[in-house]
């Protein structure tokens, strides 16, 4: 059991920032967001104000109550397994949301409070020391999130969706996706070969399942019929090699599969190759 308190930080209140290198998206702190976006709207720079714009207000601090239950298992000297279940109940959750779109299509984000939210899930981790030089590790997280007020409406049968023939029906509970920008499944996997401090190969895979980005089917909640960003796999590979006593070469490829999503991951670079030489005096 734990209790948490998080006051809005400097970034959430005051930092206004536009990333021109990556599609020109902006994040405005809540102190200025309304004023700046209204001004942009007045000079015709805004294509659309999202319903979230009307929810912008003075940010309240976030209070959370969390529960954790974990277990560890070591079947042998070389294997380590951990499992952990968690549930957090959060009052006025501070959450980043898209609040408007500029006429060039770039997004504007700010922060708002979700009155009553929850996050719950299970995390697992394992580590396996194969030999002294080889190590395999991985992890998986299953996550459910939601707005409790939305969830209450869904349970009462007050949210609707459409059947395949186009007619309306009451939404099923299992169609609710919860809070936007969160993936239900996340996994990572790492393989390490390291015979010495400077001689190594790391292989790292990350997986993130799809996440909802916009409520596109006309109802008030995020559900399976809405707009999603695709899930993806990222693979990073790096290696180190000692050349001389004081000289070390490092090389790597980040995002080997060159996964890119300009709309929903604007600051996620494509494949990136690097080579560094370290010289120790």
């Amino acid at each position, binding site marked *: 059991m734990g209790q948490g308190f998080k006051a809005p930080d400097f970034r959430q209140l005051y930092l206004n920032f536009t990333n021109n290198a990556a599609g020109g998206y902006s994040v405005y702190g809540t102190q200025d967001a309304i004023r700046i976006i209204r001004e942009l709207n007045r000079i015709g720079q805004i294509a659309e104000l999202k319903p979230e714009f009307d929810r912008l207000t003075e940010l309240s601090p976030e209070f959370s109550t969390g529960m954790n239950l974990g277990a560890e298992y070591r079947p042998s000297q070389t294997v380590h397994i951990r499992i952990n279940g968690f549930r957090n109940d959060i009052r006025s959750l501070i959450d980043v949301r898209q609040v408007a779109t500029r006429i060039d299509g770039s997004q504007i984000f700010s922060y708002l409070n979700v009155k009553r939210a929850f996050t719950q899930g299970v995390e697992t981790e394992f580590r396996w020391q194969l030999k002294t030089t080889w190590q395999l590790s991985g992890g998986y997280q299953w996550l459910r999130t939601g707005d409790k007020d939305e969830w209450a409406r869904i349970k009462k049968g007050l949210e609707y969706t459409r059947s395949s023939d186009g007619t309306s029906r009451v939404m099923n509970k299992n169609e609710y996706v919860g809070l936007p920008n969160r993936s239900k499944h996340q996994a990572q996997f790492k393989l390490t070969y390291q015979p010495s401090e400077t001689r190594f190969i790391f292989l790292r895979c990350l997986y993130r399942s799809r996440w909802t980005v916009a409520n*596109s089917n006309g109802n008030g909640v995020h559900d399976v019929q809405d707009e999603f960003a695709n899930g993806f796999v990222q693979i990073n590979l790096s290696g180190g090699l000692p050349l001389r006593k004081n000289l070390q070469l490092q090389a790597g490829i980040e995002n080997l599969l060159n996964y890119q999503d300009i709309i929903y991951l604007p600051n996620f670079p494509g494949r990136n190759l690097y080579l560094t030489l370290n010289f120790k005096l």
Partner: protein
Amino acid sequence: MNTKFPLLLLSFLFVFAACEKDKPTPVVDQRAYSVSTSGNIITVRNLPGDTIVGTTAQGQPIGAGRYSFFSLETGQWISNADSNSTRWDLAFAGTILRVNNATSGPGGGGAFVYNGTFESLTSVPTDSTFRVDNHPISYAITRGSGKAWYTYDGPTNLLTPIPGRTLVIRTANGQRAKVEILNYYRGGTTPSASSADSIKTRDQRFFHFRYSKM
């Protein structure tokens, strides 16, 4: 050798399927205006409502301002020559829906929006208030994204009818009907967000709805 068996079976199935299809079935044009009845529910497809004819100086697509008038009582698309009569109950022009009363026509029509599915509305409560149009300032069926029956998304330029919104209509002659707008695009499927603007413009303002008298 064994693989030939499923192939043979498949070809039999084809012959069988072909025989089934020999019965004359009416050809349904998914993109044409049609009215069909199933039980007491009447479904109207592809009723144009002031479809796009050009663009404004600012590049906005516009229609010719031509309403389509529909009679819920007879299930017919009424001629525009009869616009000033009580022959129609609901008129369509883009996001404007009008009922036959006050500034819109000589009838005793009216409307309000019910939050709930079409099926769940079994009778009109006696204390219901039917609203009338005050063209062009306000309408019985409120215009605007998220207000009555649709949401509009600017960046994708797509209009989506809101699920679970049922229009309760009082006809020109004072009868009651419930209406659910199903889709706003020709063919009955909303174009994908990534479709070309030309498709979104060409296919919009084709109403698909179902209704039944109450």
